[in-house]
């Protein structure tokens, strides 16, 4: 059976103004709100996540908008210091826990992991739905607490400020984040069991798409690290509510203990945000260069190496914290080591283009944007791993710029690249490639415009979390705030043309990019049980050698193949 036999016939050349009916699929299995809220279909749950993280992203973005507005002038004149502190706390809490951590795993991962390994669903479909309820319940509760009352501890909750000094709604936020953590743990568990037990015939470990490898490593981190966060939050709550001395020295506690526990979770959490992005980019690079990934096994091992070494570098957040000097030296060495597999990945993506037949559709532009921003973000990470430079740069805007390049520039570009790549599969519709390419370029430019000046501010010495600052920092801050306007447009545009595509887009063929991978061997959108015939994998992933100079992508998308 060839792939085309699985594809439902689609009307070709239908005018875009019309609203063509889609073939029977998981989207037509039930159209009531109830059918969505009680679904156990991994594809529908992925969409529930996609909608919720989008809402939360724009709430977190609104907080950042007010911050950039405040920072346009040196004086603290737009909002009070208290409000500013609540704004950056809200921005951090929402973006880290309610957007970045679930972004790729819970949306694209949920949708694609079963499809890519040829399974009908995740191993525990009801647990998957329960995870979404935990997530959306905990996040909504936290956001209400942060908007109604506010919290001013920063997303890092450093003790003893968070336990005995802040008089904002710390306990509610701790509770909300605690609950959302269980969603992470359960999702990770679900993916691990699924990838171990539900692979279709022929899907060997070293035939798994790198996206699945990345989800697997990410899941392991979620399962191992998130419980430490949960325990840490409980300890904070115990000290705050019951006055049990754990972190505050006035009660006999140790404030550095909190930082060790917090970063033991939060550093691996950075890799939860970036490993799935690397997975997405590998899929896109292979498809649009029509080449196998250069060094597939190296790339898979690099993912595992990053996940493992990533657990051993948390102390690099604490070089000036008062931890032992010798601990600082050890953590610095390990931090340089974790940069090696990351660097190798960048080199291997670059080499994947060698002798390719490269096309620059929107997903590829986003993926190239990822590599550019991740390279800059990674390189500046080396400055922060170098002890004596970190002493000057830590807690300045250099750090802000560094992690935004990785987590926002990098991961969000990859997330949007993935959304554009699999959009035809998920929705069964095509979108305007012209608008999408424009948005990808706008995002890249807007991002650099916003965050590159922050590197310079950090080198100059501007501390983070200041709502007022000395006047010599103003020029760069104005540049950054202006760039944020362009960046915001880059984020809003996809909402418009993808929203339009959702209702008015031309129906997508089963495999619009002529891509390899089992997810393309079923109809777009897939039927509820994913595959009408259980697929079998007969060759390594990314077997693009048959491709004819990239023309095949055009033909595939136009349905003329």
């Amino acid at each position, binding site marked *: 059976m060839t792939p085309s036999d699985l594809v439902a016939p689609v009307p070709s050349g239908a005018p875009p103004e019309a609203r063509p009916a889609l073939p029977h699929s998981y989207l037509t299995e039930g159209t009531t709100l109830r059918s969505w809220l009680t679904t156990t279909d991994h594809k529908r749950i992925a969409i529930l996540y996609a909608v919720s993280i989008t809402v939360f992203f724009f709430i977190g973005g609104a907080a950042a908008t007010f911050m950039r507005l405040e920072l346009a002038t040196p004086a603290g004149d737009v909002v009070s210091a208290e409000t500013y502190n609540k704004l950056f706390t809200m921005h951090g809490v929402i973006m880290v826990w309610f957007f970045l951590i679930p972004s790729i795993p819970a949306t694209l991962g949920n949708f694609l992991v079963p499809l890519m390994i040829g399974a009908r669903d995740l191993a525990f479909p009801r647990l998957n739905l329960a995870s979404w309820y935990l997530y959306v319940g905990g996040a909504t509760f936290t956001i209400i607490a942060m908007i109604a009352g506010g919290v001013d501890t920063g997303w890092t909750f450093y003790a003893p400020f968070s336990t005995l*000094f802040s008089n904002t709604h710390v306990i509610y936020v701790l509770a909300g984040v605690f609950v959302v953590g269980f969603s992470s743990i359960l999702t990770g568990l679900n993916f691990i069991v699924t990838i171990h037990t539900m692979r279709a015939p022929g899907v060997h470990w070293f035939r798994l798409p790198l996206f699945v490898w990345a989800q697997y490593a990410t899941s392991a981190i979620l399962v191992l690290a998130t419980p430490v966060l949960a325990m840490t939050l409980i300890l904070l709550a115990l000290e705050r509510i019951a006055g049990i001395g754990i972190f505050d*020295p006035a009660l006999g506690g140790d404030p550095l203990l909190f930082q060790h526990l917090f970063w033991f979770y939060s550093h691996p959490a950075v890799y939860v945000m970036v490993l799935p992005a690397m997975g997405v980019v590998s899929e896109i690079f292979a498809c649009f260069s029509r080449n196998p990934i250069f060094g597939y096994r190296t790339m898979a091992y690099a993912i595992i190496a990053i996940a493992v070494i990533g657990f051993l570098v948390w102390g690099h957040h604490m070089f000036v914290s008062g931890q032992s000097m010798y601990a600082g030296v050890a953590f610095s060495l390990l931090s340089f080591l974790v940069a090696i597999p990351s660097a*190798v990945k960048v080199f291997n993506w*670059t080499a994947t283009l060698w002798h390719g037949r*490269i096309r620059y559709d929107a997903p590829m532009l986003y993926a190239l944007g990822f590599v550019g921003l991740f*390279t800059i973000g990674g*390189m500046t990470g080396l400055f922060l791993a170098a002890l*004596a430079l970190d002493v000057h740069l830590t807690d300045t805007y250099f750090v802000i710029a560094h992690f935004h390049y990785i987590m926002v520039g990098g991961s969000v570009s990859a997330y949007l690249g993935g959304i554009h790549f699999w959009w035809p599969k998920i929705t069964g519709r095509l979108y305007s490639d012209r608008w999408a390419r424009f948005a990808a370029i706008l995002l890249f430019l807007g991002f650099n415009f916003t965050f590159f000046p922050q590197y310079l501010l950090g080198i100059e010495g501007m501390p983070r979390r200041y709502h007022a600052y000395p006047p010599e920092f103003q020029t760069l801050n104005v540049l950054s705030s202006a760039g944020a306007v362009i960046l915001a447009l880059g984020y809003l545009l996809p909402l418009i043309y993808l929203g339009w595509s959702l209702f008015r887009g031309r129906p997508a063929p089963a495999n619009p990019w002529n891509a390899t991978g089992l997810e393309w061997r079923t109809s777009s959108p897939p039927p509820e049980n994913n595959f009408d015939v259980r697929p079998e994998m007969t060759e390594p992933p990314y077997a693009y*050698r048959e491709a004819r100079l990239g023309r095949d992508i055009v033909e595939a998308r136009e349905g003329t193949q």
Partner: protein
Amino acid sequence: MTLLPLPPSASTMAPRVDALFYAITATTVAVAIAVFVALIYFGVRYRAGNPVPRHEDIAEAQRRARIRVELAWTLIPLFLFLCAFAWAARLYVDRGTPPAGAMAIDVVAKQWMWEFQHADGRREINELHVPRGQPVNLVMTSQDVIHSLFVPAFRVKQDVLPGRYTDLWFTATEAGRYHLFCAEYCGTDHAGMGSGDVVVMEPAEFERWLASGARAPSAAMRGEALFRALGCSGCHGANAAVHAPNLAGLYGKPVPLSDGSTTVADERYLHDSILQPHKEIAAGYAPIMPSFAGRIGEDDVFDLIAYIRSLAPATERPR
């Protein structure tokens, strides 16, 4: 050299950090340019539709190429990283080792101000005067949350913690007025703790400045007065009849406990021994000390610890 917008360079550490800064910047920029050039070159040359020769069997071609390049682009970065690590670690160890004979200045951070006290008792707030050319060691602690003292022009920064002392040393090289920031978020007016200055003066001018202001007792001096007023000296003093640990030289030393374990006489141990004396009993002593919890405040405990600390030689501080 003003390619990078580095702040003024005003300490002995600053040019050493800057040299490393330029070296790492040059290396990373070179590698980033190489990556971007390769991306653009491949991207243009191998764009779809461009009729350049390509390998028929790309999988096999990649396999052969990998053997040559993958080891190279793993080992070369590793070598560069180890060089950067060693260079930076060397400076970090120097930064963490105050030179003997540095001029000690006490620093107490609190929401939201910096209090500095010079050895002769001269105090100042949110402004720190230091002489040019002399090593200065700030001995810092906090009365509430974590703060961080940051002087960009000196390229130094150190968190200031409640319940323990941290050191930050520098030797200023250029007279002038420089920013003094709080770099660790400490609550509502965190930015307000960043409006202070370090004033570097010529040594003679500094001596005149030091002699001009009013004196106040230091924390250790206040602690010594409390030590007598509260009756501590009745048991812990040199001529006391009661069998109680002698506190001279105790700070920073290991203390055997009655349960067989050993602890170190740091701020936490002294703090807890004053407020919860029955928690850890020093081996060989009867548990007869009364608790001072509720009788004295945290600031008094702070002064008492400063006094006990002043009874030990500076080299005994735990690092």
